[in-house]
């Protein structure tokens, strides 16, 4: 009997090697499949860069560096310069960050320190919903609701208030159109708020409680604990979150297109209409006639991609370093 069992087992050996070999072949196929998918992600990125560079070539050849230093934008004479759009992009994003960073950190402090525990999750989710609302909704709301309200109740008052102060008088100069660079910046700041507060709250939660307890034990107030212990500890994460938000603000299209006013020149007043790179592309691309016009718009896209790449790459490096530290700490 034992012999028969042994024989049976022996006879199965080739079957098993066959199964193992088959599994191995399937393994290789699956591994290759996932590898190819990963390479396609790289290919998409390379394709984006290559297509933008190729599309922008005619404009690069025609205008050279003057493209980024010239304010001219004249489709009739085919003179194109991106300076006004680049200026608008940078100014709206900077102003948005000026509002969003302190408020975002404030929200994170509120959520980790002050808010009663049962309310933390709902309020946190509500703030994050701001990031879930599509940008076109911010656009239509900004155009029909926010801009008229802002024009009537805030802008006119600000213009009056600063009318006698040198410098500020020019920065906040009228006429108050409602739409313009400042309105776009405010709406951007609301849109990126959740990115900052979510990342900041997450880093705040990685701060070891021992550190906070020690500071409280020395008699620090809650604010002193936040300012002297938690914030320095979480600094790179907060900066990383802010950079992530900045990357979003720089590339935001629809919300800005609705309310910026589309003016291709640079004015000192932040209440004046302006334009951004993405707004110019969104507004003019389908109506652009002529290769040089299209190519100039593509070159603007290339510049935008380049700027956001640098911002997002540095955001990533900061957050990665933080992750590595959090990993080694536990």
């Amino acid at each position, binding site marked *: 009997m034992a012999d028969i069992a042994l024989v049976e087992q022996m006879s199965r050996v080739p079957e098993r090697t066959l199964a193992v070999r088959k599994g191995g072949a399937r393994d290789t196929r699956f591994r290759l499949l996932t590898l190819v998918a990963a390479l396609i992600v790289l290919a998409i990125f390379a394709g984006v860069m290559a297509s933008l560079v190729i599309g922008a070539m005619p404009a690069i050849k025609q205008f050279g560096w003057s493209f980024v230093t010239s304010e001219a934008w004249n489709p009739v004479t085919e003179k194109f310069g991106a300076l006004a759009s680049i200026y608008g992009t940078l100014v709206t994003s900077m102003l948005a960050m000026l509002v969003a960073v302190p408020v975002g950190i404030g929200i994170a402090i509120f959520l980790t320190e002050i808010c009663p525990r049962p309310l933390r999750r709902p309020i946190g989710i509500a703030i994050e919903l701001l990031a879930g609302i599509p940008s076109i909704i911010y656009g239509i709301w900004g155009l029909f609701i926010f801009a008229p309200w802002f024009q009537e109740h805030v802008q006119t008052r600000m213009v009056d208030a600063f009318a006698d102060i040198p410098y500020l008088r020019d920065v906040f100069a009228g006429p108050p159109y409602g739409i313009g660079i400042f309105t776009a910046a405010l709406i951007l700041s609301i849109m990126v708020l959740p990115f900052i507060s979510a990342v900041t709250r997450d880093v705040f939660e990685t701060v070891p409680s021992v550190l906070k307890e020690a500071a409280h034990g020395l008699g620090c107030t809650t604010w002193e604990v936040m300012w002297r212990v938690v914030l320095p500890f979480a600094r790179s994460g907060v900066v990383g979150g802010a950079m992530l938000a900045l990357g979003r603000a720089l590339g935001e299209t629809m919300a800005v297109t609705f309310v910026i006013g589309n003016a291709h020149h640079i004015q000192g007043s932040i209440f004046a209409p302006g334009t951004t790179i993405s707004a110019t*592309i969104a507004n003019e*691309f389908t109506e652009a006639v002529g290769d040089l016009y299209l190519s100039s718009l593509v070159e603007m896209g290339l510049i935008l991609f380049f700027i956001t790449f640098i911002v997002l790459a540095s955001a*990533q490096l900061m957050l990665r370093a933080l992750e590595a530290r959090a990993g080694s700490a536990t």
Partner: protein
Amino acid sequence: MMNKALYARRKLWNGFFLVLSVLAATFGLIWLGFILGALFYNGVAAFSSRLFLEMTPPPGENGGLANAILGSVMMSALAVLAGTPLGLFAGTYLAEYGRYTRLAFFVRFVNDILLSAPSIITGLFTYEILVVKMGHFSAWAGAASLMVIVVPVVVRTTENMLLLVPNGLREAAAALGAPLSSVIQSVTWRAARAGIVTGVLLAIARISGETAPLLFTALNNQFWSSDPNAPMASLPVVIFQFAMSPYEDWHRLAWAGALLITATVLTISIIARILQPKRSH
């Protein structure tokens, strides 16, 4: 005596900044309420069954958004159908096969850039490689453009969710003699299923409101069209066109469309949040 003054000052500052942070949270919540309130108020007023049954009208006539709704659903579905497998496999490579390799590091970096890259750039990219080559605008190009947005979202969540699966599970399956591909397909994927579905839902939520990538790929279409080789209307593009127009009745339709999109997106994100597994610290 001096100490008392110091204490008083420190307490004052503490109170001051804590009040500021409460105000910051209120600031965020007020905007949320303001936006959703306005959207609801204006959107509901324009809501009717016509919205789903009639085509986008010329100015001055009655109509609905049926062709735009169809276009949005079709292009989003195509983008998700094509983008999900790609993202799933790439995310699997990052978490399972290549976890510590240099290639994976590079792919991860590039993927995170794509994740936050301006969506108008993906529109330009698709325009250059599809619209120019095909010679005309089409729903294929629109869907491809949305796919470029879907892939990085799915890659990121897939990788994150697979990394949450304990190694013990993988080791146990491997010890039973299962080849690595079976370990991944029948054990780790299954363990991470809820999270991966969350990723796909988030991707759907993200693209249903995207306008910029569709502007010069799918363009727009005033009529009912289900031909993916022709220009196609979509809700966001129609909202953009209608809101920027001077016509009152177009504005009303734009508000109704905006409410429709927001309700869809928020519902999907709330479902995604419920499905999302808790992250262990």
